């Protein structure tokens, strides 16, 4: 993998048969993922964009293998086709766009193929030794709230996935925060650029808040029972159907230590102040 600049990748005519010229394998929370390319020089650009905590693997073992093939294009604009199994993800798009798509897809692949860990769509931070989970689907405002909590001094664990182990503890998935501006453009900001730090160790969950953004909402969260808290987590679990038994057991453990709340929230800054007050008061 001699070059890290995708624009330097040699052009290659598309043919039906995929001929592997380069390969990248990694594991992340037990998920084993492979990326094959039909040209050298493309895959190094991915090395610093793999999912957080990914470990490059020498062994060509994967439960999920992508194929990236360069296609005919102008010399200054390489294009690519990306596929997984028999399905084409993108066909003959600019290489940069194809790689962006691959990077997004890798994170979901990890969440689906993780072994011994359960991925829940939730922001996660640690406050005074215990984790706070903010379950919510994509575009629910998790990143905004997590960013505000980090700026208030919380330790960053994730803005997208709470990674739970069998004991109900949350592990870091500290990808750069995907901060969306008013125009909807996303920039990826490492937590250090916000003045924050990322956690490194698994911690028990102390709080679970299922919050729904509503402009001008009054902060009046209501407590949930343990079972209701488990349901809020299940609703946001990537593999809820295929790993339902694991999910129930793990959420049972989470709710042994966690207090659960739900409600509407307004803007992040006001929410964080009220939320920290709630945590400081011990719920």
């Amino acid at each position, binding site marked *: 993998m001699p070059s890290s600049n995708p624009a330097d990748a040699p052009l290659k005519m598309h043919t039906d048969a995929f001929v592997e010229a380069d390969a990248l394998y990694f594991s992340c929370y037990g998920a084993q993922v492979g990326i094959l390319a039909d040209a050298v020089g493309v895959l190094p650009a991915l090395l610093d964009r793999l999912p957080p905590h990914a470990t490059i693997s020498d062994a060509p073992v994967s*439960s999920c293998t992508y194929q990236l093939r360069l296609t005919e294009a102008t010399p200054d604009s390489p294009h690519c086709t990306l596929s*997984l199994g028999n399905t084409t993800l993108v066909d003959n798009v600019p290489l940069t766009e194809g790689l962006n798509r691959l990077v997004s897809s890798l994170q979901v692949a990890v969440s689906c193929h993780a072994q011994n860990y359960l991925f829940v769509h939730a922001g996660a931070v640690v406050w005074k030794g215990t984790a706070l989970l903010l379950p919510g*689907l*994509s575009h629910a405002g998790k990143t905004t709230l997590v960013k505000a909590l980090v700026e208030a001094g919380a330790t960053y664990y994730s803005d997208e996935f709470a990674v739970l182990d069998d004991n109900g503890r949350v592990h870091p998935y500290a990808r750069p925060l995907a901060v969306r501006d008013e125009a909807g453009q996303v920039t990826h900001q490492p937590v250090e650029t916000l003045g924050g730090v990322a956690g490194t160790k698994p911690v028990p969950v102390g709080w679970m808040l299922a919050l729904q953004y509503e402009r001008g909402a009054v902060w009046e969260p209501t407590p949930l029972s*343990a079972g209701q808290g*488990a349901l809020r987590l*299940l609703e946001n679990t990537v*593999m809820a*159907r*295929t790993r339902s038994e694991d999910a129930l057991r793990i959420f049972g453990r989470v709710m042994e230590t966690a207090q659960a709340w739900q409600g509407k929230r307004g803007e992040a800054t006001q929410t964080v102040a009220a939320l920290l007050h709630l945590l400081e008061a011990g719920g």
Partner: protein
Amino acid sequence: MSNPRARTTDLLKQPTGDDLVIFDQHRNIAHTLNRTAALVFEHADGTRDVAGLVSVLQAELNETADEDLVLMTLDKLRRAHLLEDAGPRSAETLRASRRRFVRKIGLVGALTLMLPVVETAVAPTPVMAQSGSATGGDSATLPPGLCVSNDQACANGL
């Protein structure tokens, strides 16, 4: 009328705090049952009639438990497809049971906690979990095979 019998097939159960969380593998939905609902569910094994279930609630919860409370609870379990027998009673009959029981206990105090609660949530597919849409939504960032219509494909390694 035969004795009430809770479903036993295709259900996963997990005690969680004071609640019982149940995953219905047939419908891919989950329920949380509060203590009253859980007691009726666990003891509705076809050997007890309504009076027998009243006795269970009186012993485990409070002497105030009566037939109306059991009937209300059975209705909630039926609506959640957690009983083997036929559909729920009419809405009017159900309201009458609830009115009688609420009048009995009053609307304040700890006894209201005896009212049965069965809350249900849909377990999402990976696409739903990604997009927030029950219809699948934008699966643009999902690897194909992860699992637009059949998430078993994902479990099988695509």
